């Protein structure tokens, strides 16, 4: 298995397509950081204009922590598409290339080969996420400095002390890894069905868009299925930034408002990963290699 994983990683990182995602993330983040660095104060004033009469905030609102939060909100919608670019090509890309039959005549079972490929694709996803974390969090902290994190939610504000923030980001990124691995496994499932590269990539993207729409629509018909859709849970990394308050409405240091929601989301996402990968293995095992 170790040999399969290292070979699959070697193949992933020898292709120029792999670096599109890294380049795209770097370009987007650096452009946003540059824009906020140049004109950040007017953006902060815009954010605060509705509450300036009722609330006075000391310190630097537009700090590295807030920038990271803004970036994650923007990018965690797009990163799944970049993940799909590689994951959805893992099996179908080889079928299209004709190399699948070379792989499948080696003395490894198809289950081992598919698992090896999935683990390699997952490592790629995690590396991509680490790259995102490095640029969005640490580079932002370096450029903008750090201070308390001030978040404007729809009908309330959250103020998290500076020293209570970093671990929340660690939690959010770990959570995001589950969300992105779900996308990886979905791409993988699509890849096991098709014999061409484009179909599974488009299929994965379409599935994410379709289920995201179902998750966001407040239509009673879909209410019953929404809790089971992976897209309903993918954005719950934000729960790490909702904090409990005491009877004086003061934030409780180190607390999370809804831990159960995070746990449920991780269980649902893990269940999806297991389901998608198992289905990919079964399909690949039964498949006749005609390409």
């Amino acid at each position, binding site marked *: 298995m170790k*040999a*399969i994983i*290292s*070979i699959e990683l*070697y*193949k992933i990182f*020898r*292709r*120029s397509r792999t670096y599109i995602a890294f380049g795209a993330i770097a370009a987007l983040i650096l452009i946003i950081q540059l824009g906020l660095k140049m004109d950040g104060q007017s953006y902060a004033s815009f954010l605060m204009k509705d509450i300036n009469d009722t609330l006075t905030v000391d310190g630097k609102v537009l700090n590295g922590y807030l920038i990271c939060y803004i970036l994650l909100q923007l990018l965690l919608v797009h990163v799944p598409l970049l993940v799909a670019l590689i994951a959805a090509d893992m099996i179908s890309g080889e079928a299209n*290339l*004709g*190399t699948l*039959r*070379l*792989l*499948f*005549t*080696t*003395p*490894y*079972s198809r289950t081992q080969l598919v698992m090896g490929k999935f683990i390699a694709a997952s490592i790629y996803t995690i590396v991509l996420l680490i790259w995102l974390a490095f640029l969005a969090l640490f580079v932002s902290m370096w450029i903008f400095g750090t201070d308390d994190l001030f978040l404007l939610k729809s009908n309330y504000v959250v103020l998290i002390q500076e020293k209570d923030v970093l671990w929340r980001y660690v939690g959010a990124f770990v959570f995001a890894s589950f969300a992105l691995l779900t996308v990886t496994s979905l791409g993988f499932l699509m890849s096991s069905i098709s014999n061409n590269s484009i179909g599974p990539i488009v299929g994965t993207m379409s599935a994410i868009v379709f289920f995201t729409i179902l998750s966001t629509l407040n239509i009673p018909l879909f209410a019953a299925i929404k809790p089971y859709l992976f897209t309903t849970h993918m954005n719950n990394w934000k729960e790490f930034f909702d904090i409990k308050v005491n009877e004086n409405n003061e934030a409780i240091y180190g607390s999370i408002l809804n831990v159960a929601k995070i746990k449920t989301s991780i269980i649902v996402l893990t269940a999806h990963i297991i389901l998608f990968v198992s289905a990919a293995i079964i399909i690949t095992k*039964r498949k*006749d*290699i*005609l390409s």
Partner: protein
Amino acid sequence: MSVIQVNGLSKHFGTLKAVDQLDFSVTQGEVFGFLGQNGSGKSTTIRMLLSLIHPTSGSIELFGKPLNKCRDEILEEVGAIIERPDLYPYLTAKEHLQLFAKLRNKHVGATSINDTLLKVGLADRAKDKVQTFSLGMKQRLGIAIALLHNPSLIILDEPTNGLDPQGISDIRNLIKQLAKQEGKTVLVSSHLLSEIEQMATQIMIIHKGKKVADGPIQKLLDPNKMIVHIKTTNDAQTLQVILSGSFSNYLLQRNDGIYLRLPDYEIPLLNTFLVNAGVGLVGVETRNSLEDYFLQVTSTII
């Protein structure tokens, strides 16, 4: 000892019987020529031997072990190229060999890799990416991958595709050497019947998924029986003449002329018969090649 033993092997795709009740065996050290027209079921059979396609029915044993139960163990001892030499365009020839050596759990050193590349004539292109290779070079690299782990059974599906005459000759010699000097068993399919004729010890011909002939090549190409091509001024009339006489038993149905397969001592008698019947004889050409035999058995005899 049978290295390959196939019994009642069938593969159906919907209503299409791609392979239908195939039985054959290949013994150790043999070069087994596997022949058939396009779409005859050759590649499907080869893919079933390599566990790429699941048979609808029948059994496959390699090295005396059932393929469906001992697949991984069996494939350790098999090297193969299947149809096209599809490879990773972004990797070099050397990287391909390193990658597949690792997948085979073989600790193949740089010397072995260089030797294998030398064997297939790619030593000077070891560090070039495959995307710069011609079809023939890819084919050579495919063969190198198949041979790298020193397998006991080598399955080569159209190994001479895209090769130039020198390349074809090199591969032919390599296959013969592998069987004769190293005792390896080689199953080879090719459209180049003259090549198969020069290297195979046994052949099998399949047609529409069914076996139509098999055996030692020397026995099948019986030197006492010749294929005779009769060239006349009026083929329709000649055909009627032949059908009316005892030579009709030797007639072969071919759409490219009048052909008979008959003992060599009957050829002068046929010549006399046709001349006496007033046939405008232009020429009588005798042949006894695998190509003629192939065309004979894959055609319907009248």
